[in-house]
């Protein structure tokens, strides 16, 4: 039988006065008064118990339970110090002190609370403790007083021991002990058990309370249901706290609240969020550009030259080994590594936003938007995560209790612009939009939000019609000054993940792309010496190229990189670099100038409208399937049928939007 069941059935075996139980331990003696020490967890209750009983303590599980209860002897000093007095208070008093488990209330929500309830008020009056000492944290008074409120309804003698006064002082909270005593209707003593402060006063209060009848129980509304009764207690607590405390300090919480009035406002909040994100992208692209150019020059110049020279020195120059190392690894992985400064800066800025507490405000803004357009409130959580990486975001849909909401959200997550796509956006932005690269990248993030909203509305209007929307409340942390240590740690963890992907999946993809670009399709051509457009890679890409003609990027170079991008978006740039590194000498372009080669390709494929074609390409990249890892995660979370539906949906949305953007854009650019 559990403690809760015992409590419910009132089995008369649990009593603080039955000290013969093994687990009950030793007290001061059978005739000594029994004082029960109760209180919410972390209010200094056990510290007080140790301070009052010293080493004279026994601990153990209460019989029939797994709940630990300590019992000890408290030698309370004389409270009457009159010379020659012979009254009972002039002699020390031995008290049996029982340290009950921490409990917020007498409601048996846990075994601890069930036992506390049973021992304090469960048994007959003669088996109850003579008095309860309830510890209360002065810095969190409201949270501690619910237990006091319940005990005050029972007519049990009680003394409130007010702890953590130093913490309350630091927070600018002043508790008026006299006012609290008057409002609660029981003695209140401020103590500091860690420094043994106020223990004499507590002994006097306890001895005084033992000598008088318990106060009348606090009246409660008759015939009230459980919630009404709890509400009545909270109303009483609110009145007590208001009368007995004053907050003098304007702490960080208050400052945060003032800022939040603006930052989370219905109209201004989203605008501030958009401005912050625009600033992040603008700062990232502007500051990182020179570093990126330096690394690009380093990989395409000295590193490539040194590798070629070294291979010639060992007799491997102009062989397939040079092709793999120079056109494959250095061109592919090297190009991706030029994005390390950019990703570092981006991760630092996002870590600063996160550590400062702003990202949590962004969640509020996003959540409000979601609910206004009829999407489930909690869906914004995995969607926000999706802007980092889609894979954990889809796993995160498990927090949604409704299965249909989980499927809907998992279908929307791939439309969030993950950081892997960011590298391609930045590269396209710098090639086609120059000084406005940051704005172009920001535009892709805005487009991502618009796509999610429109696709979400379309799905809710058809497949998920009539699904209820659950309300949601967020407990925002206070703003804080970001710490260098945490920002550096978070940045490093994310950068390490980026580098691991670059050197893992991307390395394999680079080798795979190089292999396909080296295999000839025509007889008479040697492995590794075939023009890319005549390789297996080039021929296969040319077969799918016509599909992208209405979108303006129907070149085999662009089409092939989208196929590679299905594996992972980081591979888009590396495969492009590989393609042009091989093709450039044939075309006579400047070695290493990938941007010029890409621009020329788009000018040609779009019929002289490279800007709308580039935008269409970026939007296609944004909306189509993020990577195989995302597909695998979707398959695990929502099953094969919905995953295939999702992949089809992404391709349809991506192609439709890309075509629309190009066809409309070519009218203006």
């Amino acid at each position, binding site marked *: 039988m559990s403690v809760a069941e015992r409590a419910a059935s009132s089995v008369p075996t649990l009593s603080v006065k039955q000290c013969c139980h093994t687990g009950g331990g030793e007290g001061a003696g059978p005739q000594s008064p029994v004082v029960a020490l109760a209180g919410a967890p972390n209010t200094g209750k056990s510290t007080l118990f140790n301070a009052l009983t010293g080493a004279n303590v026994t601990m153990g599980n209460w019989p029939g339970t797994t709940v630990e209860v300590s019992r000890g002897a408290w030698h309370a000093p004389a409270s009457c110090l009159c010379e020659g007095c012979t009254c009972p208070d002039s002699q020390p008093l031995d008290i049996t002190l029982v340290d009950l488990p921490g409990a917020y209330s007498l409601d048996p929500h846990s075994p601890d609370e069930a036992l506390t309830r049973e021992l304090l008020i469960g048994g007959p009056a003669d088996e109850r403790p003579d008095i309860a000492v309830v510890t209360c944290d002065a810095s969190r008074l409201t949270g501690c007083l619910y237990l006091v409120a319940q005990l005050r309804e029972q007519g049990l003698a009680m003394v409130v021991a007010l702890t953590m006064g130093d913490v309350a002082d630091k927070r600018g909270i002043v508790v008026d002990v006299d006012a609290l005593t008057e409002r609660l209707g029981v003695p209140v003593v401020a103590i500091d058990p860690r420094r043994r402060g106020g223990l004499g006063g507590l002994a006097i209060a306890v001895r005084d309370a033992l000598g008088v009848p318990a106060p009348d129980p606090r009246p409660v509304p008759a015939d009230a249901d459980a919630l009404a009764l709890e509400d009545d207690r909270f109303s009483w607590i609110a009145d007590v*706290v208001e009368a007995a405390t004053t907050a003098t300090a304007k702490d960080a919480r208050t400052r945060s609240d003032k800022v939040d009035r603006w930052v989370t406002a219905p109209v201004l909040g989203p605008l501030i969020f958009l401005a912050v994100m625009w600033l992040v992208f603008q700062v990232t692209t502007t500051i990182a550009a020179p570093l990126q150019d330096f690394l690009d020059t380093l990989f395409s110049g000295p590193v490539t030259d040194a590798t070629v020279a070294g291979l010639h020195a060992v007799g491997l120059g102009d062989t397939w080994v040079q092709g793999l190392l120079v056109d494959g690894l250095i061109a592919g992985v090297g190009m991706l590594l030029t994005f390390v400064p950019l990703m570092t800066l981006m991760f630092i800025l996002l870590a600063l936003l996160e550590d400062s507490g702003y990202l*949590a405000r962004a969640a509020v803004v996003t959540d409000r938007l979601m609910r206004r357009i009829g999407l489930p409130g*909690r869906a914004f959580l995995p969607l926000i995560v999706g802007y980092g990486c889609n894979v*954990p975001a889809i796993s995160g849909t498990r927090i949604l209790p409704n299965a249909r909401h989980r499927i809907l959200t998992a279908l929307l997550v791939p439309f969030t612009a993950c950081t892997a796509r960011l590298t391609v956006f930045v590269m396209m932005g710098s090639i086609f939009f120059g000084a406005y690269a940051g704005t172009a990248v920001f535009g892709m993030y805005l487009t991502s939000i618009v796509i999610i909203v429109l696709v979400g509305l379309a799905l809710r209007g058809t497949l998920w019609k009539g699904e209820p929307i*659950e309300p949601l409340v967020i*407990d925002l942390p206070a703003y804080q000054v970001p710490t260098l240590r945490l920002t550096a740690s978070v940045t490093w963890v994310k950068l390490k993940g980026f580098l691991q992907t670059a050197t893992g999946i991307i390395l394999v993809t680079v080798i795979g792309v190089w292999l396909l670009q080296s295999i000839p399709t025509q007889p008479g051509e040697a492995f590794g010496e075939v023009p890319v457009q005549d390789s297996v890679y080039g021929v296969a890409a040319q077969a799918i190229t016509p599909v992208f003609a209405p979108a303006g990027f129907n070149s085999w170079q662009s089409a092939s990189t989208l196929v590679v991008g299905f594996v992972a978006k980081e591979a888009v740039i590396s495969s492009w670099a590989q393609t042009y590194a091989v093709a450039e000498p044939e075309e006579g372009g400047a070695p290493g100038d990938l941007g010029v080669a890409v621009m020329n390709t788009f000018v040609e494929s779009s019929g002289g409208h490279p800007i709308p074609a580039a935008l269409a390409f970026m939007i296609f990249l944004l909306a189509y399937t993020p990577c195989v890892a995302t597909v695998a995660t979707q398959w695990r979370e929502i099953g094969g049928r919905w995953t295939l539906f999702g992949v089809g949906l992404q391709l349809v949305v991506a192609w439709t939007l890309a075509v629309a953007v190009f066809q409309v854009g070519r009218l203006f650019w």
Partner: protein
Amino acid sequence: MSGPLTAVLAQVEAGTPTLVEIARRTGLSEEVTRAAVDHLLRSGRLAADQVPIGCPPGGCGGCAVAATCSQPVMLSLSVRR
């Protein structure tokens, strides 16, 4: 009869986005609002989920920077039905 708990529950139902906003709309102090929410969570009338912004799905246990992290945990609250 409408007390602090009923008022807080009504605001959660209505979709008031933050605890500070709930405190402002109900006229309760922020401390009483937080204590009321804690009580509603313990009594099972509200459910709380950790918002995994910037955090791994498995929570702090699987996070490489858990040892150095000093961020407060952000919770989302919803009415349990």
